[in-house]
């Protein structure tokens, strides 16, 4: 009976309910041999009355999740930015006049400098977050605290690089 009550308590956990409503499926909680699943007789979710957590301010991404998403966003930015880098490579290597075109754009053009700063920032962050991946692949910082610490370090170092890139461009 105690196990039964524990399963029942588990099935009332609000976080699991959010998971259930996200999956649009009842989550089958594990139970010991001989025990019946606590949710076996449950009706489909669409008709079930469940508390829904709509207080979005109480849901927060952990820092490592934000770093992970930023890694993806910066990667997409770099892919889009490739067209500018390829243009700069081609024109700067085409002729002395072409080289001056690129150099003047980077020295005076507002749009070119914003794009350059944005790309350097994305590159800086992507680089640092990527190094963090490699460090974690080697088995360092894989604990919960290590993951937090690594995410904090990634943000601090890349913020520094973003500022330095801005100083360099302007």
């Amino acid at each position, binding site marked *: 009976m105690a196990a039964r009550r524990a399963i029942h308590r588990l099935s009332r956990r609000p976080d699991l309910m959010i998971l259930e409503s996200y999956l649009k499926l009842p989550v089958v909680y594990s139970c010991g041999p001989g025990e019946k699943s606590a949710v076996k007789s449950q009706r489909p979710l669409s008709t079930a009355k469940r508390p829904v957590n709509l207080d979005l301010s109480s849901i927060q991404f952990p820092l490592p999740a934000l770093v992970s998403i930023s890694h993806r966003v910066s*990667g997409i930015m770099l*892919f889009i930015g490739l067209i500018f880098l390829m243009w700069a490579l081609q024109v*700067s*290597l*085409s002729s002395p006049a072409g*080289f001056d075109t690129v150099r003047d754009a980077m020295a005076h053009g507002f749009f070119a400098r914003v794009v350059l700063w944005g790309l350097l920032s994305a590159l800086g962050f992507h680089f640092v977050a990527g190094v963090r991946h490699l460090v974690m692949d080697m088995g360092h910082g894989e604990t919960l605290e290590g993951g937090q610490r690594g995410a904090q370090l990634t943000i601090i170092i890349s913020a520094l690089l973003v500022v330095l890139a801005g100083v360099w461009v302007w």
Partner: protein
Amino acid sequence: MVINILNPGRNGVADWMIQRASAVILGLYTIFMVAYMMFHPDLDYAAWSGLFSHLWMKVFTLLALLSIAAHAWVGLWIVATDYIKPAAIRFGALLFVILALFVFVVWGVQVIWGV
């Protein structure tokens, strides 16, 4: 079930390895380029095209270009399979990405071997 037909490595382990190997090459290329720019604040065309006239620089740049293609392919495949649910749109987006990366590689080869 996700049927993997547009990822470069055909399986997760190969993709993982491609991503790391290309990342190391791109990291080295990035460090080299940033250091070069820092040590040459008054860069001119002669020095710049002189750098790219070396065979090792052409090979290094080609390696970086191929790494960009592989790295972006793996990365954008992961992102696309995570966020784009309709198969047709995902397939189209990935085809576009692969085609764009192919164009960048050909374009880059043309540029660096034209110096």
